[in-house]
């Protein structure tokens, strides 16, 4: 009996990423924090679809008469992973450009847009 420990673990991952997002100054570490949040959310979505003693929803050599986990969260998590990859590429490109122009990776020294 594990209760709902997996959900709590996903929330802990989200909180770790949020901590990095709020209290780190290095822009690379901020990007890593965003990735950790995203992985926590993806894990949460997949954990939402788990059925007790379920197998993967694939019929190739599936054990007969086994319950299958819900496929829709897995499919949408797949979409979410690819979108996260695209946004990570964009964020890293922005970090490279910021370092090129400002010669620093400190997020608090980039103040052109602060009011």
């Amino acid at each position, binding site marked *: 009996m594990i209760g709902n420990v997996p959900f709590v673990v996903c929330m802990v991952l989200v909180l770790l990423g949020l901590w990095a997002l709020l209290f780190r100054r290095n822009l690379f570490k901020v990007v890593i924090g965003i990735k950790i949040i995203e992985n926590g959310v993806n894990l949460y979505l997949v954990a939402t679809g788990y059925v007790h003693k379920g197998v*993967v929803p*694939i*019929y*190739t*050599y*599936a*054990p*007969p008469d086994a319950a299958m986990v819900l496929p829709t969260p897995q499919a949408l998590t*797949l979409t979410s*992973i*690819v979108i996260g*990859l*695209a946004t990570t*590429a964009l964020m*890293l*490109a922005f970090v*490279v450009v910021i*370092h*090129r122009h400002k010669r620093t990776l400190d997020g608090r020294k980039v103040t052109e847009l602060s009011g």
Partner: protein
Amino acid sequence: MSVVVKTIARILLPVILVFGGYVILHGHLTPGGGFQGGAVAASAVALLLVAFGPGSVKKLKAPFSILEDLGGVAFVLLGFLGIGTTFFFNLLAGSGGLFGAAAPIGPNPGVLNTGGTVPLMNWAVGFKVLGGLGAVMVLFGLFGGDDDR
């Protein structure tokens, strides 16, 4: 990199590409699919970039961009194939032609010739992801440095 890395990369490169193709081809039967197979194949580009430096992949930038565009266009065209019923209707499934055999119901060893438009869309999306990821990695390798302004 050193000669050990270069030699191992030369050996591993075809294996990685073939495994990516396998994952894409069996996307409708086993775990995997277009995205995963494309990402596996794109990791070959990362290996090339690490082992041989950015100069070795400079010529791949334009082919990867064209590959991504062609994959996207093929995906939308396959979606339009079933426009007689709805967009993204699976016209080929169960029709008896290409990828048109009916799948046996229940757990089975898997028949490759099933799925209708799904395997074709797997290939389209696989090439799209390979092109997109490869183009991003080549761009970072070429222009991601700081001293080449």
